[in-house]
């Protein structure tokens, strides 16, 4: 590593430690930011000599990255940005902090995939899904898929592990040199009714989908979720035991096994490692307060709300919505979510934008109680389980109320 990069790397670690000590967050962004100021090539220097996997998509990045890092860990030490700091500053921090490791598994914000692909020369890129997310500032779905296409076309040497169930992802991966397809199921279809290639309708039947007007169709997946397990490319079925809820996480586990396989890890060796992953930056964390077992579920966009309803048990459920900068300022997406799975449960609402949620739930025939805080919610429900589903900053607020639980 050149001297400038060494200095930058060391300063980056110090800044991260200072940020943590000052209680200003995990320190995973500020450290990288300072490091990149000193040496813009720092990320490339830090990535050099490591076998790198990148994980990108709208939903499931953080959890899949954690699972893939655990699976690749069979081979040796893995650097990873496990706090969800998924832009180049976060990658720089994570690699600097980890020191020398033979492997790195990095979660990448979908907008930054091209840049990080360029900087880190990865061996594998995993593409999970693309759906609407913070449309008031994020690029629209088809445009994002096109950016991925362009980025992958420039790196035919990269092996892509991609979701066969998402037409947008399949189209984005069309320019890739080689693809290993996985099938993890897709609950959300509202961003893929129209073929991104030709504009014709996408038809669906059971697991299959195809374009009515051009050859784009679901590729045959090599990795398939089957009940509570995953079938690998040889046809062998592996039972997946996770400490994370929901069918969506079995899908994330399949992706992690597919990524690890590209490093030569056999699924039979990796699968037991997946059970070490518990909560991820507070997601799925359980906390007991006043006889209530509170479980935290993060849901940032319509697709992830549907997954959260699938994970949540039939128990009193608190929904919390904010619309601050990191959440996107627009709450219109609330009407893209069908809240009817919550009918029959005790539903409580809170957050900066609880009134938007109130109007939505009324139209959806879901009775609710508006409460000013998590504590008020806790005292409004009987002892037992309380499910909490919140969007990004609302989730962080609740985590803070619970002393930054991980």
């Amino acid at each position, binding site marked *: 590593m050149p001297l400038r990069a060494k200095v930058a790397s060391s300063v980056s670690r110090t800044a991260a430690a200072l940020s943590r000590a000052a209680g200003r967050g995990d320190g995973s962004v500020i450290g990288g930011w300072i490091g990149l100021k000193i040496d813009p090539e720092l990320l490339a220097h830090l990535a050099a000599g490591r076998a790198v996997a990148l994980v990108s998509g709208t939903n499931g990045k953080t959890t899949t990255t954690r699972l893939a890092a655990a699976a690749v860990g069979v081979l040796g030490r893995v650097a990873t940005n496990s706090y969800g700091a998924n832009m180049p500053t976060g990658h720089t921090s994570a690699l600097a902090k980890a020191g020398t490791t033979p492997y790195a598994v990095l979660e990448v914000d979908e907008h930054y995939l091209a840049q990080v692909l360029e900087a880190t020369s990865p061996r594998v890129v995993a593409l999970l899904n693309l759906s609407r997310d913070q449309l*008031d500032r994020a690029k629209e779905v088809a*445009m994002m898929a096109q950016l991925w296409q362009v980025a992958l076309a420039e790196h035919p040497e990269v092996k892509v592990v991609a979701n066969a169930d998402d037409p947008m992802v399949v189209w984005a991966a069309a320019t890739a040199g080689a693809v290993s397809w996985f099938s993890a199921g897709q609950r959300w279809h509202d961003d893929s009714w129209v073929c991104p290639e030709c*504009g014709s*309708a996408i038809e669906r039947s059971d697991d299959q989908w195809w374009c009515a007007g051009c050859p784009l169709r679901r590729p045959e997946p090599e990795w398939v979720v089957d009940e509570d397990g995953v079938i690998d490319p040889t046809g062998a079925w592996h039972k997946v035991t996770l400490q994370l809820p929901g069918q969506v996480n079995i899908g994330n586990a399949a992706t992690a096994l597919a990524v690890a396989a590209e490093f030569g890890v056999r699924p039979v060796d990796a699968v037991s490692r997946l059970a070490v992953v518990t909560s991820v930056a507070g997601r799925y964390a359980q906390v007991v307060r006043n006889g209530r077992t509170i479980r935290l579920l993060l849901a940032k966009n319509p697709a992830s709300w549907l997954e959260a309803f699938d994970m949540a048990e039939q128990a009193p459920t608190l929904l919390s919505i904010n619309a601050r900068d990191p959440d996107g*300022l627009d709450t219109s997406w609330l*009407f893209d979510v069908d809240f009817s799975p919550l009918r029959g449960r005790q539903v409580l609402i809170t957050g900066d934008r609880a009134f938007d949620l*109130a109007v939505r739930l009324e139209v959806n025939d879901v009775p609710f109680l508006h409460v000013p805080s998590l504590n008020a919610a806790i005292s409004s429900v009987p002892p037992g389980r309380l499910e909490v589903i919140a969007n990004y900053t609302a989730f962080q607020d609740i985590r803070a109320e619970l002393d930054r639980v991980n």
Partner: protein
Amino acid sequence: MSTESFPAIGPSIGGPSVLRLVWIYPDLLSTYGDRGNLLILARRAQQRGIPVELTEIRSDQPVPQSADIYLIGGGEDGPQALAAQRLRADTGLHRAVGQGSVIFAVCAGYQLLGTSFFAKGTQCTGLELLDLYSDRGPSRAVGELAGDIDPRLGVPPLSGFENHGGRTHLGNGVSPLARVTAGVGNDGTSEGAWRGNILGTYAHGPALARNPALADLLLRWAIGAASLPPLNDLWADRLRAERMAAIRT
């Protein structure tokens, strides 16, 4: 095509036997929670004892000409241009307008109603149902949108969220929906447009969630009623008050 029927849930007040709502091309023009407008109109009709039939027309299906209210949502450039082509070729919507049907269009759907709009860098021919045209603005308009609605419509101020790159210029054949008090709307001064039973706005997505009186206006146009029984709009009123206060700070 999918059609769902919803029975009335309030006492009947007469009017048409079934109120037919059609959502045009959700496969092309549906983003930002556009479904909300359909659901809100349906619910507010049902609560007045009016049974409702909701139909979603995909872009490869003919547009029925006999529905009461047509909704057109927002969308990206490509789908917007495609929707314009197909609706011009279909002519069902034009015939419905000729029979006095109500149209409510938001964002890309609103631009579509004019004589022309810009998509993917070229000028596209619109449906020519409203005397207006749209071009590209100097910057994207993103944020809270509010305005005082044309007093002839008898509706309290508009509250919404806008997210569009276009600017819209009104001709003499239409009236602005509102005078802008926050945000950009058509051009920073006026917002939306209406003529007869056709109404368009840049307040995107579930615009009617924040504007229940506007929803009722569309229902009154559709059933020809001078007024409708009031509903309990406690949460919508709280939401409106909160948003109006947020713009002032």
